[in-house]
Each structure stands twice: as structure tokens, then as C-alpha cells.
């Protein structure tokens, strides 16, 4: 793993223990090189120009679509819609799918959701009279799937839940969610933001209908992401945004729309970012997956054990390593997360503190916020050591 860490220039340049991967991962040299090469050799707009740069840019962009399809296990690259990120993807579904819902139809979300997978549905509720049902969670921060039967019913049209919690790290038992949805002919959307870096995944095999991810959490650039959706779902949806790229014909009186995925890609897309995202996906695909998972599980175990050994800390999430990702959030009695993060920053440790865009979850656990350490494959024992040393310092200062 030391060689892998050396692929990340930012980790070489400074004495940094970067444990904020749940917010943004760093970018390896290979991905940076692809982005620079594209911008210096193929920069042009896509799908319209006939000059050689435009042709090259279009080819690179569509190759990126094919790569992301492969990364997500999709046979059809037409099921890949480029978005600005997970939030953009979910908002797209909340409009294009949500606008087909009738008053009284129900959307199921959970208490575990990032605001990105809650607020768009609240806005849909207010716009369309849709009813929002909320799946509770267990004491250790997993979806309480035993209660699916209480919130999923005949009027359920969509279950929109997280694949991996950005706070507790819990991995959703997707099969049970899909089973409940299929029983009432509802669709399933997974928020894959925290899962993407741990792919590749076979998303169609999960049985879901929509999958949203962000590139900046999977070793690639900001400002781009993917909505994967089954072709029949995309085909049934009207556009979300209007503009260039998404039309078939336009007159002053009316417009007809392109087929998916272009129907949902109004305006100039984030081209170099998409090319960079494909490079990031290829970089992930080349990782020794089992070794990486074992490495991350061991480091996650060290974090959890370290917290358990320290008084005044409370893990917010599963204590075991089964069905959880390397996202470790905790509360500290008598110390605000921002103060913990500030002290840890003086030790070179980058953490995230606050509500993590999950305020209902914070209210549920009766905390203003939590401190979160989230790992990526380049993290090592030195990072965990620095974290524990810094945490001791913080706990000592705020007695």
C-alpha cells in the first residue's frame, strides 16, 4: 500500500494524514495526467463540432460513458447520464420521475439519509402532494429493515435510500429493500456516493432502478457524477432541464427531445471531468480489491478499537466490521466536533466535524454533530496513529 500512496502527489507534498475521504478523496497522478492530457490535446465541445478536436473530445466523452457503464456493471452505456454529482442525479430523478407521481403517492426515505437524498423528496412532496414516509434506523445506525413493511405500502412508488451511510458507514442490505419494493411494484434509488470508491459494482444485479454517485469521492475530479438508470426508466421520463444537447428538433412553437441519455444532459457537459472520472474508474478497477478491502477493514477496526479505549467518546455506527465501510463517526462528551477537528488539524490530521448534511440523524442521536474519520485505500497505520494521538490531545485539552 505504500507504493499506492505514492501515486497521490498531494500526500507526497505535505505531512498530511488525510481522513476526510467521505467528503472528497484525493486524486492519483494517473487521473491528473489524463485530465491534463485531455485539456491540452482534445479540449473542445462535444456532439456538435466536426473539426478534429471536437471529434476527439466527443470520442473521449463517449468512451468515458462506456467506462462508467462497465464500472457499474451496466451492459448499455445509454443508461449512464452524466450529472454534476450525486445531488444532481437525485434531483434529476426527483423531477423527471417525481413529476409522474400523483398526489397521495408515496416515496420512502430513511432517517439515515444525507440531505441530498431527503431535501429533493421534501421539495417533491411540497410540489406534487406526494407523501414522504421515513424508514427508521437501528441503534447502531443501520436501516431498520424489519420495519419496511410498516412504511412500504400499496401507494409506494419509490424507495430512495443510501447504499452506504455517510455517517455510520453502514452498508444497506439492498436485496431486502428491492424485495419490499418489488412487492408493491415500486422503484428503488440508491445513493451511492459513499460506495463508489469501493467499486466496481454490479448495480443492475442489485435489482435497483436508479443509482447516483459523485466522482470526487472516487479519486476523480469535482463537478461530475453519474445517474445510472434502467433504460426503460429513462425512456419513460420527461426531461429535467431544457437547453442545448437534449433536443431533437426545436421550432418557435415546440421542441421534441433526444433519446436518453442525452435527453437528461442539457447544456455543455463537464467533459474533462467525465474523462477524468473514467480514468478514476479504471484506476479503481486495477486495484487489488480483496487486499484493499482487508486493508481498510483492519484500519477501520483500529479506529473503532481506539475509540472504545477512550472515555468520553461514543461511536455513532456499527461496532463490528461486517457490512460497514471505513466511515467512522463519533461523539465526544464535552467537546464540540469542530474543536476536535481543529486540534487534530494541528497534528496534520484532516477530519470532518459537524452534522455531515444529516441533521435529522444528529437529532435522532441527540448530538449537535459528530467527528468523522473516513478512510481511503492510501491511508495507513501512520494515519491512524496520528489520529489517536491527536484525539488524546483534544480530549486532554477540553476536560
Amino acid at each position, binding site marked *: 500500500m505504500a507504493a499506492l500512496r505514492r501515486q497521490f502527489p498531494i500526500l507526497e507534498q505535505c505531512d498530511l494524514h488525510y481522513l476526510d475521504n467521505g467528503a472528497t478523496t484525493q486524486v492519483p497522478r494517473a487521473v491528473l495526467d489524463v485530465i491534463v492530457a485531455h485539456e491540452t490535446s482534445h479540449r473542445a465541445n462535444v456532439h456538435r463540432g466536426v473539426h478534429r478536436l471536437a471529434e476527439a473530445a466527443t470520442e473521449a466523452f463517449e468512451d468515458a460513458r462506456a467506462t462508467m457503464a462497465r464500472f457499474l456493471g451496466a451492459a448499455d452505456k445509454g443508461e449512464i447520464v452524466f450529472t454534476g454529482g450525486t445531488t444532481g442525479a437525485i434531483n434529476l430523478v426527483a423531477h423527471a420521475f417525481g413529476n409522474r407521481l400523483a398526489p397521495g403517492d408515496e416515496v420512502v426515505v430513511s432517517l439515515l439519509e444525507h440531505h441530498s437524498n431527503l431535501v429533493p423528496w421534501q421539495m417533491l412532496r411540497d410540489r406534487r402532494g406526494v407523501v414522504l414516509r421515513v424508514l427508521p434506523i437501528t441503534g447502531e445506525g443501520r436501516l431498520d429493515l424489519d420495519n419496511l413493511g410498516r412504511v412500504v405500502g400499496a401507494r409506494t412508488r419509490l424507495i430512495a435510500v443510501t447504499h452506504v451511510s455517510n455517517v455510520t458507514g453502514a452498508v444497506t442490505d439492498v436485496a431486502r429493500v428491492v424485495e419490499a419494493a418489488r412487492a408493491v411494484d415500486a422503484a428503488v434509488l440508491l445513493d451511492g456516493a459513499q460506495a463508489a470508491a469501493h467499486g466496481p459494482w454490479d448495480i443492475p444485479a442489485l435489482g435497483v432502478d436508479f443509482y447516483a454517485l459523485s466522482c470526487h469521492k472516487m479519486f476523480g475530479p469535482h463537478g461530475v457524477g453519474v445517474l445510472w438508470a434502467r433504460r426503460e426508466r429513462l425512456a419513460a421520463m420527461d426531461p429535467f432541464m431544457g437547453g442545448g444537447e437534449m433536443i431533437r428538433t426545436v421550432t418557435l412553437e415546440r421542441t421534441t427531445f433526444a433519446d436518453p441519455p442525452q435527453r437528461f444532459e442539457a447544456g455543455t457537459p463537464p467533459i474533462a471531468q467525465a474523462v477524468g472520472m473514467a480514468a478514476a474508474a479504471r484506476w479503481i478497477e486495477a486495484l487489488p480489491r480483496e487486499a484493499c478491502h482487508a486493508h481498510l477493514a483492519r484500519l477501520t477496526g483500529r479506529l473503532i478499537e481506539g475509540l472504545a479505549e477512550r472515555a468520553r467518546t461514543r461511536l455513532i455506527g456499527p461496532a463490528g466490521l461486517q457490512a460497514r465501510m471505513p466511515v467512522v463517526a463519533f461523539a465526544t462528551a464535552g467537546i*464540540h*466536533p*469542530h*474543536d476536535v477537528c*481543529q*486540534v487534530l*488539524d*494541528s497534528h496534520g490530521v484532516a477530519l470532518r*466535524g*459537524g*452534522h455531515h448534511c444529516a*441533521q435529522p440523524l*444528529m437529532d435522532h442521536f441527540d448530538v*449537535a*454533530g459528530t467527528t468523522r474519520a473516513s478512510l481511503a485505500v492510501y491511508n495507513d497505520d501512520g494515519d491512524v496513529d496520528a489520529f489517536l494521538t491527536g484525539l488524546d490531545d483534544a480530549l486532554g*485539552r*477540553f476536560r
Partner: protein
Amino acid sequence: MSDDLYQQAILEAARRGAENRRLDRPDGSSTVDNPLCGDRVTMDVCVRDGRIAAVGFRTRGCALCQASTALLADAAVSREPGTLARAEDEVVAMLGHDGPPPAPPFDTYAMFMPARRHPSRHTCVRLPFDALRQVLADATDGGSS
């Protein structure tokens, strides 16, 4: 460095700011949240003859937010609301533009000078000002004391 930021004076002020000092019968109350982190400050005031007669508070925030709340509650009593606006401007200038510490009685805010290097924490210091400004805009003067 955090060594500077979390000096003893701030930690002591933060301990006072962490106490529940709500007023029993305020002329007005206001609660403000920091949407970035979920911190929350509630301020109560009593106003007499155009001056702040008493300030109460409750915080759910970081050490900087708690310390700022305590300092503001101390310094605001017997001041006119306009004085608070000037003090807030001076605190903003001190933090964001390398300005000097505020004039007395708000000169205690000099302890936040190390926060200049941490722009993301400036809102922590300012949050109680937001709450007090809001409550003073709404509070009814309780009359002659």
C-alpha cells in the same frame, strides 16, 4: 495553530458560555443556527430606556461560539443597540481584515485574534452577534427601570 486558538482565556469563557443562562422573563428571545455545522445560539434580552438591561443565553456550539456568547453577554449589558452593531463590525474587521481589537468593553474579543488564520471559524465567533442583533430588532422596550 490550535495552541494559540485554544488558550486558557477562551476555554474559560467557553465554560461560562456552555452554561444555561436563559432569562426568566425576557423582553425578547431569538435563536439562530449555523447551517454549516448545526450550532445554535439562543439569546434573551431585557431592554430598559433604550439600553440592554440583561442578556441571557443558551448555546449548542463549539468552544469559540460558547466563548463569544459569554463575552458578548457580559459586554452588552447597559449598552445601546447601536453599540453592538459597531462592536460586531470591529470584530469582523479584526478577524477578516487584520483590524485592531474592538474598543472597550468589547476589547475582550482580542482573545479571538488567533482565529484570523481560520476563516471557517469566524462564523462561530459571530453567531451570538447574529442572535443578539435579531432579538434586539424584535424586542419591545420594557420601559423605565
